């Protein structure tokens, strides 16, 4: 056990003192502060005209005036970058600098090395995101003058947790890549490629899959349309980016009732009331499970490669 805690301690200290961490922290802080500032401006002008302050605090994170994307969009773009940056050279840099054979000749299990590094990264991510959330919430509070309700606070904490899990997933990916590729530059590049693939190409590929599974003619009936839409959504949920976006939007926008397509038949008679926190959390629960499962898959792959690998200096 002392092996794991020693690795954790060292890696955590390394992360916190590293330039990489400073840069990422500054970048996200900047993005967060400016996004919230812009959002607060537009919220203030709305508030004066319309008296409803329901969920106004959440709007700080989700609404935008068109000048800058909302914080939510920034995070879903920058989050993977943070995860990749914290892990892309976890194992291979130690291989290349000859410290890995010294490390592994100490009495600790090999998985402790991976676990220690992952946990240290996780702690770093949590620390980074939590403090950024605090800072920008503080700014938001000062700007709009409306404190968050309990409901909103729970939603924000849920949002924070989902984001931590999402960033941790990308870190698990990058640790896996650092086990697979000998050069840190290669693993960084591979990580970026995956990120771009999931962010930009996955929706298109989901559409293609849906077209193959449910071919659409010129004038598709409702059932076909519905099935097509379902298949497309399911396919895109393979992508962690989709899981994250759906989950965070649901949590931060109480008005969203369901993530799938909705028929007019269903909407008739629907009461346009926001979902309660528990209901929102229930909707995103499968997404969380999905993200954690994807993280575990990365771990399993890293173990398989690393635990029996021969380490030459």
């Amino acid at each position, binding site marked *: 056990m*002392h*092996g794991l*805690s*020693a*690795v954790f*301690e*060292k890696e955590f200290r*390394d992360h916190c003192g590293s330039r990489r961490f400073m840069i990422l922290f500054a970048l996200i802080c900047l993005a967060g502060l400016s996004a919230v500032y812009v959002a607060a401006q537009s919220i203030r002008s709305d508030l004066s005209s319309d008296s409803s302050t329901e969920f106004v605090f959440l709007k700080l994170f989700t609404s935008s005036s068109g000048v800058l994307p909302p914080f939510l969009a920034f995070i879903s773009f920058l989050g993977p970058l943070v995860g990749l940056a914290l892990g892309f050279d976890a194992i291979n840099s130690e291989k290349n*600098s*000859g*410290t890995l*054979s*010294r*490390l*592994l*000749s*100490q*009495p*600790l*299990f090999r998985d402790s090395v991976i676990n220690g590094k992952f946990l240290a990264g996780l702690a770093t991510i949590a620390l980074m995101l939590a403090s950024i959330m605090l800072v920008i919430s503080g700014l938001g509070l000062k700007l709009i003058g409306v404190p968050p309700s309990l409901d909103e606070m729970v939603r924000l904490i849920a949002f924070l947790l989902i984001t931590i899990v999402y960033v941790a997933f990308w870190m698990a990916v990058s640790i896996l890549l650092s086990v697979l590729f000998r050069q840190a530059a290669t693993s960084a590049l591979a990580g970026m490629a995956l990120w771009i693939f999931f962010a930009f190409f996955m929706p298109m590929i989901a559409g293609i899959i849906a077209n193959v599974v449910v071919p659409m003619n010129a004038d598709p009936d409702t059932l076909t349309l519905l099935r097509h839409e379902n298949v497309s959504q399911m396919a895109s949920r393979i992508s962690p980016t989709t899981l994250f976006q759906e989950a965070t939007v649901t949590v931060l926008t109480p008005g969203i009732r369901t993530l799938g397509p909705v028929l007019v038949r269903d909407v008739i008679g629907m009461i346009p009331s926001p979902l309660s926190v528990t209901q929102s959390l229930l909707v995103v629960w499968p997404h969380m499970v999905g993200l954690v499962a994807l993280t575990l898959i990365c771990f399993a792959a890293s173990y398989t490669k690393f635990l*029996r690998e*021969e*380490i*030459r*200096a």
Partner: protein
Amino acid sequence: MGERAFTETTQTSKPGLALPVDETGAPLIVHTSDLTKAYGDFVAVDRLNFSVREGDIFGLLGPNGAGKTTTILMLLGLTEPTAGTMRVCGFNSTRDPLNVKRIVGYLPENVGFYEELTGRENLQYTARLNGIPAQEAERRIESSLAQVGMLEAADKKAGQFSRGMRQRLGIADVLLKNPRLVILDEPTLGLDPDGVNQLLDLIVRMSRQQKITVMLSSHQLHQVQQICDRVGIFVKGRMVAEGNIEELWKQTLKGRRLIIEVQAVPQGQQTVTALQGIEGVEAVERSGEMLLLSCNRDVRDKIAKAVGDAGAALLHLRLLEHGLEDIYFKYFREG
């Protein structure tokens, strides 16, 4: 100092740890049987059988690519053997690598340190990984840094260390866990002659004062021959000879001629005749200022007397074929 370290070493050894013994009853800290490692079709280590006695300095000698590093990696459980078994300090390295790593120090071929940490911080990390309590760790770090002469340099960033300093810090790192066995892979590689001598001194001191068994690999024979009690000669994955240097030398010289270089004044016909008269000398030739004697055995002890009897004074006497180099080349050519 040495005494204290010794008692600690025996204390840390685990109970119930029975070492295998050789025919003379000496405990064997490393013992392999038919140890084999194949990479695909290529056999890097081929049915290796050898042992290291506790307390010895054992030299694993062989040319590049002989399989020295591969053998060491298997001994430490850093790679799995294809076949065969081994015991290190009584433990099976494949099934029980953690216990082996607890009491075996390993200095890899190209030892690396975390460059952004100081030398001392690097050692502190090793101490924590070994579960050494903080206070005890400080004490051990201090004493091992002192032993390798790195006390002043220890607070510099490891990235600034020279090769020699890294190597010495590596030894300090290895000493931290009070090892019972230390395995050094090419410890003298890339060091200047002074550095080599210092390092070898350090190894001898470590072995003699703290009673640590040392196993080192090298392809630089004359360096290693000074300090090894026993050597194993390793060529193309096979151990071609094992024993102490004297024995190996005698074996090698069996049936071969020796050349002895002699210089005497005066170096006239009388001296030459006297030298030819020594039993075992087959021919005497002149080569520049020197006389070269071909003999069928080592007759150096008789030469001084013969030269003196001939009324001359001996200036120079040297065995041209000497030591391990010979043994080494014999096996290399034949192996």
